[in-house]
């Protein structure tokens, strides 16, 4: 489904990714672990076409995504739901509107939006914060809005970049449970994290990175660094 073909990313004074080569099959729950600066986030940014690889290609269903026409990119991104450490919510939109925005972009009708948004916010346990703005929400709540936004269009892939980085253990557990539930329904999940507990409890595939290279790829891995 996704294939990284010898992807490298070099900045002027550092190598963020060094010839990274791996594949992800549909329905996998894959965790990427590593120290800060190991290249986890850069890896995801390559997948989301946020940055250009210095070498190599990223394939999604045998299409080189970096060769896509700029007009094609929005459609590609609609297949991916994103959750990130800094939430990336739209600050002037309420929780409801943030989720609804993703549906509007995907061309959903008003009826669909009116029925799905409250449902998905209920699913992430935010039924009572629907009309709050992001600055009125706690970190855990913001992250749940981001997850609601990521899953509402039933994307093929969820990319979660250190989603629990700013959260307490309870919120962390809940977020991971939601991701597992989404994965059980057939969505591919790519998770990066620092949290040993999360990885060990998941016992799914783990890719370990160091200095921009993949140093370990275990089918049912633990957090070893």
């Amino acid at each position, binding site marked *: 489904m996704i294939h990284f073909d010898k992807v490298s990313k070099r900045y002027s004074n550092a190598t963020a990714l060094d010839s990274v080569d791996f594949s992800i099959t549909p329905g996998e729950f894959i965790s990427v672990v590593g120290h800060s600066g190991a290249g986890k986030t850069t890896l995801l*940014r390559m997948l*989301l076409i*946020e940055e250009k690889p210095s070498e190599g290609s990223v394939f999604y269903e045998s299409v080189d995504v970096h060769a896509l026409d700029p007009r094609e990119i929005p459609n590609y*991104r609609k297949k991916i739901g994103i959750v990130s450490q800094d939430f990336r919510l739209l600050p002037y939109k309420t929780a409801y509107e943030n989720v609804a*925005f*993703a549906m509007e972009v995907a061309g959903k009708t008003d009826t669909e939006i009116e029925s799905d948004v409250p449902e998905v916010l209920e699913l992430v346990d935010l039924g009572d914060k629907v009309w709050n703005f992001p600055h009125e929400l706690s970190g855990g709540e913001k992250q749940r809005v981001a997850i609601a936004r990521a899953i509402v269009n039933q994307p093929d892939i969820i990319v979660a970049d250190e989603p629990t980085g700013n959260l307490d253990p309870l919120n962390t557990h809940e977020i991971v449970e939601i991701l597992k539930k989404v994965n059980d329904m057939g969505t591919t999940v790519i998770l990066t994290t620092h949290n040993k507990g999360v990885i060990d409890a998941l016992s799914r595939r783990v890719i370990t990175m160091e200095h921009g290279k993949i140093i370990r790829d275990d089918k049912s891995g633990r957090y070893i660094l």
Partner: protein
Amino acid sequence: MLLTNIRRIIRTGFLNFWRNGFVSLASVLILTITLFVIGSLVFFSAIMNASLSQLKDKVDINVYFVTEALEDNIFALQSSLEALPEVKEVSYTSREVALAEFRERHKNDFLTIQALEELDENPLGASLNISAQETSQYESIAHFLDNYSEGREGEVQIVDKINYYQNKVAIDRLAAVIEGSERLGIAIVLVLAVISILITFNTIRLAIYSSREEINVMRLVGADDKYVRGPFIVEGFLYGLVSAIIVSLVFYPLTLWLGGATEQFFGGLNIGKYYQEHFGQVFSILVLSGIVLGVASSFFAVRRYLTKKYLNNS
């Protein structure tokens, strides 16, 4: 879907305008100043045009006839003058009327009236007052009159004098002064307008710069360019509309207050009345320039963030 999208974009634009209140306020304030300058340009050129045309109206040619001139000859000249395409109007003042006007003008001047009484007959000649369509045409009318007198060498000269050549220098200089000051004034206001347009553009660019992360998030969620740009364009439109309305409201008391002063100083034009009479026109100019400025600034400012394929801002 297209209509739904347009409706959503417009609604989002309105919401952003309202929720992003402080940024909207800053943009509206700057745009208000710009539109104020543009509005002043309109008033300034109206004032200058009015005083120039008023001055031009005062320019005319008087042909004074000798006292012995026969009315028939004068009328003949009048009709040949009226036949000229340059001539707007020719009015005849008979000797009797001229005398009556003279008496009226000097009624408090006892000596003059007394001197007039001493004379047996009316010392004043008849005259023709000629006004042209354009100031520049007086020259050719004056030439026509010269030729007219010269062409009748043999006959008795009926024309006593033509006052054009005496007034010409003063008229020319005054017209040049007015045209010069009009040009200078417009140049100054234009420079101010350009400066405030640049400031407006920069303010809106900064406002959108503060939204660059938001733009990236929208793109990451999969919004296409039109969907990202749309609400910003709507906001720009609102900046323009709101500023134009504010400026029109501010101009109302201001022009009323300045109306009397402009009427006295520039002669004739009361900008308070002018504003009321031309409200539709001035308001359209303000709204149109406001909207064009707001929309264009937003368009170009957002484009900067949309033309790049990759989201990385660095």
